[in-house]
C-alpha cells in the first residue's frame, strides 16, 4: 500500500461521539415506579430471613434478616437514585455503565424478595439450586439449538428431541437396569430426530421451519402412541428407570452457599457444566467449531476452502441432537422415574427462545435458560412461603420476566447469516 494511505489508516482512528440513548433511564424509571407501587399499595409486615445455609452444610452461614418494609423502601430510594443518575448521564450524553445496571437489578431483586417474602424465610440455596435444576434440560436443549443454528440449520424440533430423549431414556434405563443406558439411548433418540431433520432439510432442501414444526407433532404422536400402547401396560419393566440421584461432590459441595447450589446436584447437571464448557470451547477454539461457524455464516466461502458443507451440517445437527437428547434424559432419569405423555410440556420452545435470547452463543443461551429457571423457581418459592398474588399470576412470572428481558436488555440480535437457508450447490 502507498505510504499515504497506510499511515493515514493508522493515525485516523474513527472519531467517536456520544449518542444519547434514553432507553436505560426510561426502563429504570418504569420499573422504579412499578416497584414503588408494591409496598405502597400492599404494605407487608415483618422481617424477611434470607437463609444462606443449607441444611447440613459443614460450615454454617448465619441467616440475614431484613425488615421487609424498610428494605423495600430503601430499595425504592436506591432505584430512584440510580434512575436519576442514569437520566443525568443520558443528559450529559454519556452511556449507562454496566455497573449501574447491576446495582439497579440487585436492588430491585433484593427489595422485591424482602417485600414478597415478608415474615418468612427465603431458602436461598434452594431457590438458586432449584433454578439450576429447572434450567438444566432447557440448557441442553438450547445448546442443541445453538450448535445446529451455528451451522445454519434452524432447529424448531428441540421439543421433539427432548421428548424423544425422555422417552427412550426411560425405556432403556428400565430395560437395562442402569441410568447410563438411558443416557446413551436419549442421545441416540435425539440424533435420530436430527437425522430426519437433516435428510429433509440438508439433503432435500425442505424448509427447515416446516420440518421442525412437523417433527414436533410427529414425535408427540409417536411417543404418546407408544406410551399408551406399550409403556403404560408395562410400567414395571419398561417405564421404571433407575435414576441419577443427587451426588454431592466431596469438598466442592462444602463451599459455603455456592457449594450446595452447584455441587449437590445429579450427574446430569455436572454433565451439563461440562457440555456447556465443551460446546463453548469447541465452537470458538477448535477447528471443528471454526468450520462449523463458517458453514453457518457463509457456506459458499467454506466450500471454496474445501470444507464439506453438507457433511459439516449433518455432523453438527447430529451432535446437537445428542445434546438435546441429554436434556430429555433429565426428565426421566433425574426429575421423575417415569415417562409421561407430553411431559416436556413445551420446554423445547422455551429452549428455542433461550437460543435466540442468548444470541446463538452457548454461554449466553445458558444464562438465558438460567434466568428462566430462576424466575420459575422464584415463583415456586414465593407461592410456597405464601404470596398474596393468585397462583395463576405467580405462574406467569417466568414468561413475563423473559419478555421484559428480551425487550429491555438485548433487543436486536444477529443470527448466523446462513441460518435457515439450504445450501444448494450446482
Amino acid at each position, binding site marked *: 500500500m502507498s505510504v499515504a494511505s497506510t499511515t493515514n489508516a493508522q493515525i485516523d482512528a474513527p472519531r467517536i461521539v456520544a449518542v444519547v440513548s434514553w432507553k436505560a433511564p426510561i426502563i429504570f424509571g418504569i420499573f422504579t415506579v412499578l416497584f414503588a407501587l408494591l409496598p405502597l399499595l400492599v404494605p407487608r409486615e415483618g422481617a424477611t430471613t434470607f437463609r444462606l445455609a443449607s441444611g447440613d452444610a459443614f460450615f454454617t452461614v448465619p441467616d440475614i434478616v431484613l425488615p421487609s418494609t424498610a428494605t423495600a423502601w430503601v430499595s425504592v430510594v436506591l432505584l430512584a437514585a440510580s434512575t436519576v443518575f442514569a437520566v443525568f448521564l443520558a443528559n450529559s450524553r454519556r452511556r449507562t455503565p454496566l455497573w449501574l445496571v447491576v446495582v439497579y437489578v440487585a436492588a430491585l431483586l433484593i427489595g422485591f424478595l424482602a417485600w414478597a417474602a415478608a415474615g418468612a424465610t427465603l*431458602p436461598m440455596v434452594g431457590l438458586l439450586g432449584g433454578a439450576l*435444576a429447572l434450567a438444566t434440560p432447557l440448557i441442553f436443549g438450547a445448546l442443541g439449538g445453538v450448535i445446529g443454528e451455528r451451522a445454519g440449520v434452524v432447529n424448531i424440533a428441540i421439543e421433539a428431541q427432548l421428548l424423544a430423549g425422555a422417552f427412550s431414556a426411560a425405556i432403556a434405563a428400565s430395560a437395562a437396569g442402569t441410568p447410563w443406558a438411558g443416557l446413551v439411548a436419549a442421545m441416540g433418540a435425539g440424533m435420530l430426530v436430527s437425522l430426519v431433520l437433516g435428510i429433509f432439510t440438508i439433503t432435500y432442501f425442505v424448509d427447515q421451519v416446516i420440518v421442525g414444526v412437523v417433527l414436533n407433532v410427529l414425535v408427540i404422536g409417536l411417543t404418546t402412541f407408544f406410551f399408551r400402547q406399550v409403556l403404560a401396560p408395562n410400567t414395571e419393566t419398561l417405564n421404571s428407570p433407575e*435414576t441419577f440421584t443427587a451426588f454431592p461432590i466431596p469438598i466442592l459441595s462444602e463451599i459455603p452457599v455456592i457449594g450446595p447450589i452447584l455441587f449437590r446436584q*445429579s450427574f446430569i447437571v455436572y454433565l451439563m457444566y461440562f457440555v456447556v464448557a465443551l460446546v463453548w470451547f469447541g465452537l470458538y477454539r477448535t477447528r471443528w467449531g471454526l468450520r462449523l461457524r463458517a458453514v453457518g455464516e457463509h457456506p459458499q466461502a467454506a466450500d471454496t476452502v474445501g470444507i464439506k458443507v453438507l457433511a459439516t451440517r449433518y455432523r453438527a445437527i447430529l451432535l446437537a441432537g445428542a445434546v438435546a437428547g441429554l436434556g430429555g434424559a433429565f426428565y426421566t432419569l433425574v*426429575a*421423575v*422415574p417415569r415417562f*409421561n405423555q407430553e411431559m*416436556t410440556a413445551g420446554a423445547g420452545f422455551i429452549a428455542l427462545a433461550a437460543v435466540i435470547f442468548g444470541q446463538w452463543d452457548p454461554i449466553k443461551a445458558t444464562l438465558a435458560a438460567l434466568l428462566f429457571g430462576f424466575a420459575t423457581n422464584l415463583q415456586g418459592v414465593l407461592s410456597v412461603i405464601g404470596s398474596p398474588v393468585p397462583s395463576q399470576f405467580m*405462574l406467569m412470572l417466568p414468561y413475563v420476566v423473559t419478555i421484559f428481558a428480551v425487550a429491555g436488555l438485548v433487543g436486536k440480535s444477529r443470527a448466523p447469516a446462513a441460518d435457515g437457508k439450504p445450501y444448494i450447490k450446482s
Partner: protein
Amino acid sequence: GQAPAESGNDGGDAASPDFLPCIVSDEGGFDDKSFNQLSFEGATKAADELGVELKDVQSNAETEYGPNITNLVDENCNAIVSVGFALSAATVEAATANPDVDFILVDDAADNDFDGKKDAENVKPLLYDTAQAAFLAGYLAAGYSESGKVGTFGGREFPTVTIFMDGFKQGVDHYNEVKGADVQVVGWDGTTGSFTGGFEANQDAKQVAVNILDQGVDVIFPVGGPIYQSAQQAIKESGKDIALIGADADLFETDSSTSDIVLTSVLKAMDLSTYEAVLSSGKDEFDPEAYVGTLENEGVGIADLHNFADKVDSGLQDEVTQLRQDIIDGNVTVTSYLSE
C-alpha cells in the same frame, strides 16, 4: 402359538349383542394415574363381569368431548361414562338428545344452569366429598409430624384439586384446635397456594415439591395425578424421612415403589362407584340419582397405614378412627363446595 378354532369372531359386537358400555376420558387420557384411570378400571371391571366389551375413547382437547360422546352414541353405546367436570356440558347435551342412553358423569353435578338440579334425567353424576377424607389425612399428618409443618400442593387450581387441599388444611387446623398445637400447612392457606401449573410429572412439579420440603415439612400431600411421582423423587433426593400422602387411589397398592414412604392415601373411590353405575346400567337397574361419595358410604376414605402402622402412635390412629365417626355423625363438620 396355538391357533384357535376357526369359528368366526370379528370384534366386540358379536360377543355381546345387547349391552355396550363406553367411556370417554378428558384431556388427561386413561393413563393419568388419577380419575380417568380409576374410572376406566371401574368400567372395565363392570364390563368384564357383564361379559361384554368396553369401548373407550380418549380426548386430547376440550373441543373433542362433544364429538367423542356423539360418536359413541352413534356406535350404539348403552351406557357412557364421561370422566371429568369438563365433559359436563357435552354430556348433558348428548343425554338430552338421547334419553335411552345411560350417562354416568364423574366429578360433576351435571348442573350447568346452577339451579341446584341436574339438567338431564338420564345422567348420573358421581361426586366425591373428598374434603372429608382429606380432613382425616390432615389430622393424621399433623399428629404424625414432628417438625410441626406439613405440606401440600396441586396440579392446577381446579375445585376437584383444591377440595383435597382444603380438607387437608381443615384437618390440620382441627388438630391444632383440639391439641392446642401449632402445626403449619405449607402450600395452601385456604385461598391460594402452590400449584405446578399442569399435571405433568416433571422437573417443574418436582421443584415445587422441593421448595415445600425446604420449608422443613415432614409430610407432603401432592394432589393431581402423576405429580406424586415428582414429590416421591424430591423426597428420595432430600435423603430425609418424609412421608407422602397419596390422592385418589391407595398409592401403596397402585405404585409399589412408594411403599416405603407412603403414610396413607386419601381415597376417592371412582373405580367403585363407576363400576357400580355401569354394572347397574348393564343389569337394567340404572338409577340416575346423583351419587355423592362420603365417608359414610365409603365413596371417599383414608387408606390403610401399611408400613406406617407401627410408626404412627396408636393413640393417634384411634383418634382418626373416632374422628371419622364424628364426621359421619355430624359432630365435626368439614366444609367443601359439595357440602354447601
